[in-house]
């Protein structure tokens, strides 16, 4: 019983923090662009509005896919240790986390492709291409950390950096951290890697056909994905945290970096993005890997 409660608690906590980050992110971007920007709680208002509006759907695949996408991300979130706690006792295996995340994206892709709008499918095709682009350097960085720690458990990797700030992998393996940050930018779909959304080109791509609660679910999925991805980086490179506030603060620092990059960069074309990801971060990551292994 207590496990079920914990699952709900962790799930809604991730959604809350993700939405909170999104709101602050919008505010920061606005300030960088010399606008006033919406209030920091705007994301909550948006989601509330979207869930209260009537919406249209085209078929059952769309409903199933949207539910699956949030389900996949929430499930992933339950595997990620937050300040040393996970919802349920697991070995918090990194490979499991990376693959579970994919089911969420698959659900989203399925839902929007079922809407029958070509723009959505183009967006998905770009998103999957981008995924191949960032997964390879990101995994290369992870591989180095896994080999040096001799474990693929995220919790153990986080614990191995306990003590002073000098033990953080961020300090010990700066090249790996840089490569992971660039890959993270693409993973979150922020500029310059937002070819899959590209509002001016393909009308927000995957989101083009979503309305009401479907768009709301997509919002929540994005919120949880922000939470999961920043939490992975914090565990891998910043030594996790001893309490939940420090953990969220560290997550926010990571998110802040992506938001600031997002605010000032233009967009890569998809093939440019993949080429960039396979050259710059990949070679940095490989260099780090070679330094670690040999």
């Amino acid at each position, binding site marked *: 019983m207590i496990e*079920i409660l914990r699952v709900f608690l962790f799930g809604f906590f991730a959604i809350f923090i993700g939405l909170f980050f999104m709101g602050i992110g919008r505010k920061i971007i606005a300030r960088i662009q010399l606008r006033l920007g919406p209030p920091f709680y705007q994301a909550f208002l948006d989601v509330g509005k979207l*869930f209260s509006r*009537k*919406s*249209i*759907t*085209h*078929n059952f695949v769309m*409903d199933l896919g*949207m*539910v*699956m*996408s*949030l*389900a996949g991300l*929430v*499930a992933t*979130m*339950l595997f990620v240790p937050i300040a040393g706690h996970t*919802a*349920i006792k*697991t*070995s918090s295996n990194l490979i*499991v986390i990376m693959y*579970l995340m*994919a*089911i969420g994206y*698959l659900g989203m*892709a*399925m839902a929007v*492709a*079922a*809407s*029958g*709008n*070509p723009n959505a*499918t183009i967006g*998905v*095709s770009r998103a*999957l*291409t981008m*995924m191949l682009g960032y*997964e*390879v350097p990101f*995994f290369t960085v992870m*591989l180095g950390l*896994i*080999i040096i*720690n*001799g474990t693929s*458990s995220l919790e153990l990797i986080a614990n191995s950096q306990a003590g002073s700030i000098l033990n953080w992998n961020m300090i010990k393996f700066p090249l790996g951290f840089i490569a992971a940050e660039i890959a993270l930018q693409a993973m979150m779909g922020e500029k310059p890697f937002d070819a899959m959304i590209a509002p001016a080109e393909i009308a927000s791509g995957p989101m083009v056909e979503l309305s*009401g*609660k*479907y768009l*709301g*679910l997509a919002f*929540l999925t994005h919120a949880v994905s922000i939470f999961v991805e920043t939490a992975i980086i914090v565990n891998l490179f910043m030594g996790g945290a001893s309490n939940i506030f420090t953990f969220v603060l560290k997550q926010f620092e990571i998110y802040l970096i992506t938001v600031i990059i997002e605010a000032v960069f233009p967009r890569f*074309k998809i*093939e440019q993005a993949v080429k960039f990801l396979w050259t710059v971060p990949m070679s940095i990551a490989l260099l780090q890997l070679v330094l670690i*292994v040999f």
Partner: protein
Amino acid sequence: MVEIFIIPLVTAFLLAIFIRNKKVVWPLFLISNLYILLKLWTLFGKWEIEKTIYTNYELFGAKLSFTLSNNPLGWYFAFFSAVITLVISVFSLGFNQKTKENVAPIWMLIIFSNLGIFFAADWITFFMMWELMGWTSFFAITNGRDKALNEAKYYLVLSLLGASSMLIGIILLGALTGSFEIFASAYGLVQVFYSEKALSIAAIMLLLFAFFIKSAIFPFYMWPSKVYAVGPEDYITFMSSVMIKYGIYPIAMFIVPVVGSLDLPKILNTANWIQYFVGYLGAISAVLGTILAIFQTDMKKLFAYSSVANMGYILLGFASMNIVGFEGALFHAVNHMVLKAAIFLTLAAVIFRTGESEMHKLGGLVYRMPITFLTFLLGIIAAAGIPPLNGFGSKWMIIQALMSQKMIIFAIAMIFASTGAFMYLFRALASIFLGQLPDRFKDIKEVPLTMLIPMIIMMIGMLLIGVVPGVVMKPLTTALRAVGYNVNIASWTSLEGALKNSTIDLTLVFLIFLGGFVISAIMYILGNKSETVPQEDNYTGGEYPEEWGVNADRFNYSYSFYQPFKEMFEPLLEKISIDEFFASIGRNFEYMSATVQGLFRRGEGAVLLFSIGVLLLILGGWII
């Protein structure tokens, strides 16, 4: 033991007699497969059963004999392939109602050779069964249709090439070790390896060559895409799930123990060169198979290349020479059997209803064939290796093994291939089942019940193995223990990794996913009501095009789905075309054989001479 060999032979004969009568043939085929499966079930654990036929021949001091024995690893492969065969034969009942040709008798012979390959205890029997499988599959692929002839010939030539290399390898092995028994020769090879290094390596390489051809490893990765595109769909299902594993089984049975017990110098403290050789071929197959699969437009070709990539994973598992990797590779062999069978059954169902295998000509079939869609969806989730389904566990074990052995290039290649798998798998899903339904497919219906039942069984199978991996891992570890590996019997729910603290409980993963699903569903239910509107409502903004006198235009984004990505890889792919390479060999060969043919214009004489030679050889054997 002998019954499972006699029954298929007798059935094949009966099937050939009743070949015109479909009402008899396919039920008989089904019953025979059911019998084989039940018999195999009873054989579990009785590893001492053996049947030998002695002959008077002698070669290199070893008596030639034909031995069939119930060896544990062979049982593992035979049992799961029998399960898949049974499911496919239920599917065939419905699928073959309309077809004119009848592949059943030949198929039964292949099932016979299938069992023979897995239970052969000596190389002579193994080779005979291998050859039988080679030429029978030629007839099964053509299935009496001219248009399939070229592809079937391609397959046959590769088969013959593999078989001849294997024959030389076997003879070499016999000469080196003085035995044709598989286990004895493996033991003997390890003994003589250091004194006869070049010849031993040559024997290993010649055998590997044959196995790689059968399992479509890198230089021979072309045949699945050619053959699957033309063969009868139900037989192709069998081929893609079971027959492609014929190369995997002898590698697990012979090559891995031999190379594992050799003490070769290690490169960079990680592994020896044979491991790297096998691993690189596996990695290239995985990466190249994935890239090629991304660019296909024919769905059967797409999944053919996906098979190539999966064989690459299995080879990577072997290359790690780590018990977790070895178990993972064998586990993946069965997982791939199950998920590929599921996927190809759905493709067969789509082709059965629409007669179309080009993906961009299909679309929106989910509204007409929901159960087929669901099977396909679970199949691609499994093939992508996403947790609650069965492809994940084995891939995870292989990656764990590669990471623990510090084989970084292979681990990266594997991640590249399995992320690329999302691309082509989703493309197939979107193009075939999602999007808008073309007008000409407005009236198609879901496939009949005999074809639905196998698909539902496959769905349950994928989910079961994914959530309770012990279903496969328990027999596997029991078999490995019986062969002599020092492994723990696996538990029902969790998998052991090769790294520190890396046990994962797949049932728990499933339950957590369910938890996520519940949370997500609550959010969905909390939201306001939604209304279902037709798809045309999207980019016409709610207007009805008919009112303006135009037809509702249907367009799916599915042709050249990954065009930008393709442009990146085009220069690379143009350079490495194995087909071109083979074609140039073929041209030279043609030229040479034409010259030789000129010398023997009168073919009859040569045939007569050959027959006399064979007769003399046989008589000689009896006299000596």
